[in-house]
């Protein structure tokens, strides 16, 4: 079972995502802030992170850079209520980004794609 870490400072969002994604067959862990996020990822070893951008105490785009420093290969799906964050070039370090909506079908689709993504390690052109 694939494990997903949800990082969002709104409890209602964490509950909503957890319920919907558990129904899809994922194991869910959640955290309400970016405090100790790198340690949490190291401990929980999630297969994917769903990361909110605008949190009360943290900027998700900065957290994304921190994640990328230590966990380059972990897929990250950015979520935000505002589409303007796409204008920040930092967001390209994410695998996918979605604008928050009551309909979670796009989020589920992007999670599926991020988990399915595959690049062979070894060249066959050698």
């Amino acid at each position: 079972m694939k494990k997903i870490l949800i990082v969002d400072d709104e409890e209602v969002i964490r509950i909503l995502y957890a319920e919907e994604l558990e129904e899809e067959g994922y194991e869910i862990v959640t955290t309400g802030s970016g405090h100790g996020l790198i340690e949490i990822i190291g401990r929980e070893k999630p297969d994917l992170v769903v990361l909110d951008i605008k949190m009360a105490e943290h900027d998700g785009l900065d957290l994304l850079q921190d994640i990328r420093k230590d966990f380059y290969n972990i897929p990250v799906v950015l979520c935000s209520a505002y589409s303007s964050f796409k204008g920040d070039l930092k967001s390209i370090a994410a695998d996918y980004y979605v604008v928050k909506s009551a309909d979670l079908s796009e989020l589920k689709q992007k999670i599926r794609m991020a988990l399915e993504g595959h690049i062979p390690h070894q060249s066959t052109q050698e």
Partner: protein
Amino acid sequence: MHIEENPHDVQAADLIVGIPSYNEADLISFPTQKASEGLVKYFGSKNSVIINCDNDSKDGTREAFMNTPTEVPKIYLSTPPGVTGKGNNFKNLFRKSCDLGAQAIVVVDADLKSITPRWIKNLGEPLFEDFGFVAPLYVRHKYDGTITNNIAYPMTRALYGRRVRQPIGGDFGFSGELAEIYLSHENWTPAIAAFGIDIWMSTIAMCHGKSICQSYMGRPKVHKPKDPGESLGPMFVQVVGTIFDMMIDGCAFWKEVRWSKPTAIFGFGLGEMEMPPPVDVNIERLYDKFQAGFADYGSFWKEALSANLSKKLSEVKELPLAGFEFPANLWAEMLVDFAVAYKNCKNGKKKLMESIIPLYFGRTCSYVIESEPMTIQQAEELIEDQCGVFEYSKSYLLNRWFE
């Protein structure tokens, strides 16, 4: 065989900045100066050299380069008289890099007007960490780089699974180890010897599993931009032909790739992005050249394209300029059909490639119309959406390629 001028008798270097050129006497001094400043400021402890790899330009490029005052020694390399091609310049650079034992090589275009010393830092520094290939990230005008936006970026991303926004950007960094790999490669085609070199280098780095990062340059790429409908020249055929050639060589690799992954990013914190100067595009000319293609290449297209795509194309033909639209999914699947036709083509590959150009004009015309009211950032999102369309068309590619 090559011509070399090495007045400082440089025999070893840790870091090289290479500047390929052909008749760039008016512009080459500026990037040469900035390269020297960057090497001194950010890599003072390294043994560095700046190499101009030229095509025996007759306009005084060599003199302009060698007479540019720099603190870093310079070497002038040239292909023999009559031998042109950017790729041939790079081959000389690969060879010289290996001879000098360089750990890292940075290349920048000779016509760059916006390069700063920091570009050298950002393209070079990751090579002394864990990265084998560094591609640039800069803001370009939404109409600049239309081959990149509509072909090179979405195709390499869908094929090889790496999101390298500027795979033919012209400004790169690569490790000495990768230079050896480039030099040892046997599938050196006339297209790679010319403008196919950039996409070839990027793709080799991806297929050899080299760690890749993209670096923020902090300033837009300002060079000699061209209206895409004005002077495409042989560049289109060489770049797209190289992509198709590499699809044939690398199908065992790309058939295993699913979706795409972001790269590591280097050079955050450069502040506000400066906006690039405008690029003028004549959409009437793009539209007319698209329409003219039906008379010139209609029979070619019928052979290369599936019946379904031919039918859709004939529908696009009927659209007036005012409501013109060449959909991204049609474009993506057409490129698949042309790649398959190229693979199966025994004779006449050049004409097949040339026949794609009017369709490219049609797609570019549609892109310009659609992005006209958009900001550069909104146009970027449009390109990202198009990349998604190309990734979804991978299943169509797999079916057509292996049928």
